[in-house]
């Protein structure tokens, strides 16, 4: 980044940017993010989607979960003033269903990401810090999960759980179980690099115990790559949830999910494209928003790209 070198040279300090207090990796990264259009755009979109997910009734006067709002006689009607996105096979309002469907996507995305990052991050920290048999054990277990192809593995897990028990919880479980090894690997690598730094040795020489060294000296210096993967995972998991629901093993009716809506409308696509196109559009925008966030965070935190 262009401004990261300014602090090193006193001559440049007279420039207007001297107002920027030169500081840690985190405040540098935050400075970059605030000035990144990609981040601001992605963050605005993501925020909007989170608000939609939290308060769908603010955006739609129709309660999509109430079957009495559907009218079979309107089935597959096109776009009209009362139904902006048309109506689906059962005559339900596509707009309100798209709005209410955001919740599943956002919840699955956030919960699966948190679960993966916490489990993978914690185990990666242990594996990298303690090394030896702890590392061997955790890394081998991670590799077993890593070897399973993700959509296939998730399909299998969800098939075992069964349709009757399928829902947000099982989708989150299926995605997290297969994704944590990636976070573990990244965390482990970062911890191993950090562990050999002089300041860790210095902390030991000044009497810091192992837990303190791990939490205070290694974790803050090793967590950046995990944060990047975490942000990127948000988009990936949202897309994966839609894929699983589309395949019929994820979210089940009467719950609303964009993937499920796409699946329901696909047979009548030529006749009534709106009920398929609008959830697909929202899905794309959501994934795009989180991928943009992830990209911007990576740019800000990855020292190799600076």
């Amino acid at each position, binding site marked *: 980044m262009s401004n990261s070198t300014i602090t090193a040279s006193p001559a440049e300090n007279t420039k207007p940017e001297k107002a920027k207090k030169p*500081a*840690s990796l985190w405040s540098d990264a935050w400075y970059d993010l605030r000035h990144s259009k990609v981040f601001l755009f992605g963050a605005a979109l993501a925020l909007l989607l989170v608000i939609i997910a939290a308060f769908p009734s603010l955006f739609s006067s129709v309660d999509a979960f109430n079957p009495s709002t559907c009218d079979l006689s309107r089935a597959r009607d096109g776009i009209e003033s009362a139904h902006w996105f048309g109506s689906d096979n059962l005559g339900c309002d596509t707009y309100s269903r798209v709005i209410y469907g955001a919740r599943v996507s956002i919840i699955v995305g956030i919960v699966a990401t948190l679960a993966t990052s916490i489990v993978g991050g914690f185990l990666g920290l242990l594996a990298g810090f303690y090394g030896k048999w702890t590392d061997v054990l955790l890394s081998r277990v991670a590799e077993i999960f890593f070897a399973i192809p993700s959509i296939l593995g998730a399909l299998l897990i969800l098939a075992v759980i069964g349709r009757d028990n399928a829902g947000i919880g099982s989708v989150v479980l299926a995605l997290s179980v297969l994704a944590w090894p990636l976070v573990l690997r990244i965390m482990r690598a970062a911890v191993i690099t950090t562990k050999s730094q002089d300041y860790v*040795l210095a902390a030991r*020489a000044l*009497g810091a115990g192992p837990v303190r060294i791990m939490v*205070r000296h290694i974790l*803050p210096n090793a967590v950046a790559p995990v944060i990047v993967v975490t942000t990127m995972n948000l988009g990936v998991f949202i897309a994966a949830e839609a894929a699983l629901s589309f395949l019929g093993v994820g979210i089940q009716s009467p719950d609303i999910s964009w993937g499920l809506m796409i699946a329901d409308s696909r047979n009548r696509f030529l006749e009534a494209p709106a009920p398929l196109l609008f959830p697909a559009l929202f899905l794309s925008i959501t994934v795009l928003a989180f991928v943009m966030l992830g990209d911007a965070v990576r740019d800000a935190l990855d020292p190799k790209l600076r």
Partner: protein
Amino acid sequence: MTNPAPAVDTHLLPADSGPPGTEPLLAVDNLHVEFKTRQGLVRAVNGVSYALNAGETLAVLGESGSGKSVTAQAIMGILDMPPARIPKGEIRFRGTDLLKLSESARTQIRGQQIAMVFQDALSALNPVFTVGWQIAEMFRVHRGLRKKAAYAKAIELMDRVRIPAARQRVNDYPHQFSGGMRQRIMIAMSIALDPDVLIADEPTTALDVTVQAQIMELLAELQRESNMAMILITHDLGVVADVADKIAVMYGGRIVENAPVHDVYKNPAHPYTKGLLESIPRVDQKGQELYAIKGLPPNLLDMPSGCAFHPRCPFRQDDCVTDVPPLHAISGTRSSACHYWREVLDGVER
């Protein structure tokens, strides 16, 4: 190294300069450290002994790979084991062998009783925390102070190591300080808990010459104030002269000369020390070619037979190739691991 290490009789050694019969504050006794590597066993330290009393400064001199830092890290207990291993030796602090203590007991000693200053303060300070936080952490963790009190102590310490405008700079990050200031912060952290022994591992190597003098002066002053014992590890003879009381010169993982600092400068008793002294640039020799010790430092994986220094030694005789020289006592306070220390003292080269 295939030949056995010589049995160094520690009673011959002028180990303690303190009153006879009393245990020195810190005594390293016949310490051996080896590293398991893919290429084989590296014997980094082969029977090092030295002793230190309160208020004393011992300079450990030697080139890279001579084992001086490894000895210090063994004292601190911060060697990674494995690959490191301590097959033999004792490190006694106030009479207790540190090597026999549990890891948690050693953690208690680190920082509080024996502390260490590292060579490169930028990499030895945690980049994500402010210096104030890092100094204050010492008080929070070990003294149980609250955040505010710990910060007040941190500012006090920064003043004590002469960081200008300490109050304003307490919330700055390590990379915002100059090299000398960073080293002062490192020193502040290491003396925070009033340790009895301070090990400074090349504290001035990463600094420029004017700053080096200031840092050495600061260390000497702090030592006078608190009567700390100090081990100063360096490869720079110039740094040593003013600060140290005694010198231990290391070569190939072994002490080759032990002496009070002024004796060494006046009249070295080991050819390696002599070579080191002669290779210091001097104003009165302007225009002449600078002396250099010929050859390369020994390969620790494949040590020369006999005396490790023999391939580079101008005093070499046949028995240097075969016999490892023991540490000969020259006087009550001096010793030299050279078969021909008399000739070296007399300056007779062959």
